[in-house]
């Protein structure tokens, strides 16, 4: 196609750059360049966080060593909500702007979000048994987190059941956007209702109610889970791009698909 014959587009350079990045063709190699650093960051932060949390942080005077579950429970619970918000954001953007890459990003985030939610629930049950005396209670915090898991699973099942990718994107987006009301419910549940689950241990407005090495371990693990989630989603979205752009010339020319 003689593209050089077309008149140049009268657009600010900035906008063009964003539009170019929104093309799977441009985003695929960019994500590929970011991935090694992100995986290394996730691994390094996790190693540091585990060393601090399991080897250096002191035993809690009330909960003994059972409290060490916090180093995975809190990061997983935070990421379960952050990933959902990111997923709903990209799904909504894909719905409104009709950009394929945004919708693919939403689909790529869902399994990682579901994993984080499962880990938060599982570690919560194992923490609840020795501290509350029960694996599970139907209180507001736990129930809304369980609902979050079902929202992720519903999103993935709906997309898997819809053959046409663009229709799957739209259907998933509507489900993701409806479910977004659950996120503030999870977050504020410990304040809105009388729950067995404790309130926030760490907040931006007051000094944390834990030893500094405990806090350091937790923050390292939060950063590790964050880097891991970004890396996993970017890795998955690259596969998703290849699956959907099978007939594109640029995809066929990639070095990794040469015989």
């Amino acid at each position: 196609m003689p593209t050089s014959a077309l008149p140049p587009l009268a657009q600010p350079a900035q906008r063009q750059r964003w539009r170019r990045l929104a093309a799977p063709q441009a985003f695929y190699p960019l994500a590929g360049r970011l991935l090694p650093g992100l995986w290394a960051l996730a691994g390094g932060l996790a190693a540091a966080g585990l060393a601090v949390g399991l080897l250096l942080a002191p035993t809690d005077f009330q909960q003994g060593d059972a409290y060490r579950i916090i180093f995975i429970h809190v990061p997983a619970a935070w990421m379960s909500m952050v990933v959902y918000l990111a997923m709903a954001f990209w799904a909504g953007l894909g719905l409104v702007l009709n950009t394929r890459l945004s919708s693919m990003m939403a689909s790529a985030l869902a399994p990682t979000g579901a994993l984080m939610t499962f880990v938060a629930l599982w570690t919560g049950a194992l923490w609840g048994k020795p501290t509350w005396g029960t694996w599970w209670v139907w209180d507001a915090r736990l129930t809304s987190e369980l609902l979050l898991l079902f929202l992720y699973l519903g999103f993935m099942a709906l997309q898997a059941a819809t053959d046409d990718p663009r229709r799957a994107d739209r259907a998933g987006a509507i489900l993701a956007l409806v479910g977004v009301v659950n996120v503030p419910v999870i977050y504020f549940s410990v304040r809105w209702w009388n729950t067995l689950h404790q309130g926030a241990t760490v907040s931006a407005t007051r000094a944390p109610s834990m030893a500094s090495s405990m806090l350091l371990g937790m923050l390292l693990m939060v950063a590790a889970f964050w880097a891991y989630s970004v890396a996993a989603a970017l890795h998955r979205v690259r596969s998703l791009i290849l699956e959907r752009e099978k007939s594109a010339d640029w995809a066929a020319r990639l070095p990794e698909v040469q015989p």
Partner: protein
Amino acid sequence: MIWNSLAEFADMGGYALYVWGAYGMTAVVVGWELLSLVQRRRRATDELRDWQAFDGDDHDTAA
């Protein structure tokens, strides 16, 4: 280091089942996700290669 021996570390002050149950399951699901990411990528590149071999002559490789 707050532990005096490996056995003490493994015992987790009597909470070994809960602490290691939490860390162990996390390791299992993260390992499973990493494996599935690698498999999905391999499947995607393999399919693209097959696709290309099937109708490779039609592609304008010069552009």
